[in-house]
């Protein structure tokens, strides 16, 4: 059976793409953010050595529009490309899909009660591409991928408890995949931020740090909150912590925290990063 090696959760702010394109990694504004990824690279190379990455992310109006808005969608394409999102961040090379795992995941998740949308064609936005570029700065992707997309655009959103259950089901699916491959789960988004309204610029450091800590010691902690409460505590876009919850849930009861970083601000966002081995 496949080995689930661990999970990485990271912010996916578009400005990261501009910073990468302009080589601003050592710029004083960006250094505290990019420095967080050195230990990630070392862990990926020396310990995790994944063959496949299941990327749990939210689309921001590239692949999905409001004409059809799935709550949970799983990619089943041979290739996933980035595309123009309207504001011109440089695009990254295409990703190769791991079709066997896509279909195993789809069959397993549907059997577990998740009524998915499946996508044999899918473009992936910055929430997918930038975390991959943070993990593998050469952008010569050494892994195949399976995208899992959670709706955080149009309410009602799936609850934190439901996203946790989805993650548990992803974990079961990966561990029951008849393959010798090593699988990493990558959850992207957050942490606290709000782009819209008079509350734009809202950041909640105390909540973020409590949430990160909970993933290690009490992973279901955030599932006590409704989506409304999560928006109140983390901001309208901070609700992207749902992807972190799914990722954590996939790893099982016990994890080892390998590394974490937290830095305010990147763009309008409190950026967070965690590496957990399963």
């Amino acid at each position, binding site marked *: 059976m496949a080995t689930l090696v661990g999970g990485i959760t990271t912010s996916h702010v578009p*400005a990261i793409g501009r910073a990468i394109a302009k080589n601003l990694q050592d710029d004083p504004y960006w250094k505290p953010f990019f420095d967080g990824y050195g230990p990630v690279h070392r862990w990926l190379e020396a310990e995790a050595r994944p063959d496949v990455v299941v990327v749990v992310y939210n689309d921001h*109006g590239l692949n999905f529009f409001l004409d059809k808005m799935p709550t949970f969608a799983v990619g089943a394409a041979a290739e996933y490309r980035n595309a123009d999102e*309207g504001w011109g961040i440089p695009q990254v090379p295409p990703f190769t899909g791991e079709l066997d795992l896509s279909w195993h995941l789809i069959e397993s998740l549907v059997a577990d009660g998740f009524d998915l949308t499946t996508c044999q064609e899918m473009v992936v936005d910055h929430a997918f591409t930038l975390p991959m570029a943070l993990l593998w700065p050469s952008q010569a992707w050494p892994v195949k991928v399976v995208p899992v997309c959670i709706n955080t655009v*149009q309410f009602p959103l799936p609850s934190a408890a439901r996203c946790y259950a989805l993650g548990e089901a992803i974990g079961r699916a990966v561990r029951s995949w008849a393959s010798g491959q090593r699988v990493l789960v990558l959850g992207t988004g957050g942490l606290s931020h*709000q782009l*819209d309204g008079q509350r734009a*610029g809202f950041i909640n450091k105390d909540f973020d740090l409590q949430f990160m800590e909970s993933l290690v010691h009490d992973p279901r902690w955030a599932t006590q909150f409704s989506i409304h409460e999560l928006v109140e505590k983390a901001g309208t876009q901070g609700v992207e912590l749902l992807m972190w919850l799914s990722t954590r849930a996939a790893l099982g009861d016990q994890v080892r925290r390998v590394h974490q970083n937290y830095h305010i601000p990147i*763009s*309008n966002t409190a950026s967070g990063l965690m590496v957990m081995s399963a």
Partner: protein
Amino acid sequence: MTLPDIPGTTLFDGAQARKGYGLNKMCYSFNSADNRADFQRDEDAYCSRFGLTAEQRRAIRERDVLGLIAAGGNVYYLAKFAGILGLDVQDLGALQTGVTKDEFKRRLLDAAR
């Protein structure tokens, strides 16, 4: 079930999604460089193609971000409109909170304390 409002926050729910469909569809079209150019050639004609209401057209014309949100705009699609104008999310934040961009950035730094 009615939930208490979160100050300064509009949740993009069914009511907003219904109201803003044309506006958001127009902004979604800005994923294409050709469409962005079309819009810039004649903004009003481009708005007409998507059936924007008078209020939505006013808010587009006046770059009124809070007005666009009130009229059903979703920030992820509006960000593509902002991109045409060369505005980033910190510019949008400053516009919505009525402060300068420098002041908005200073507030973000304060959140780190």
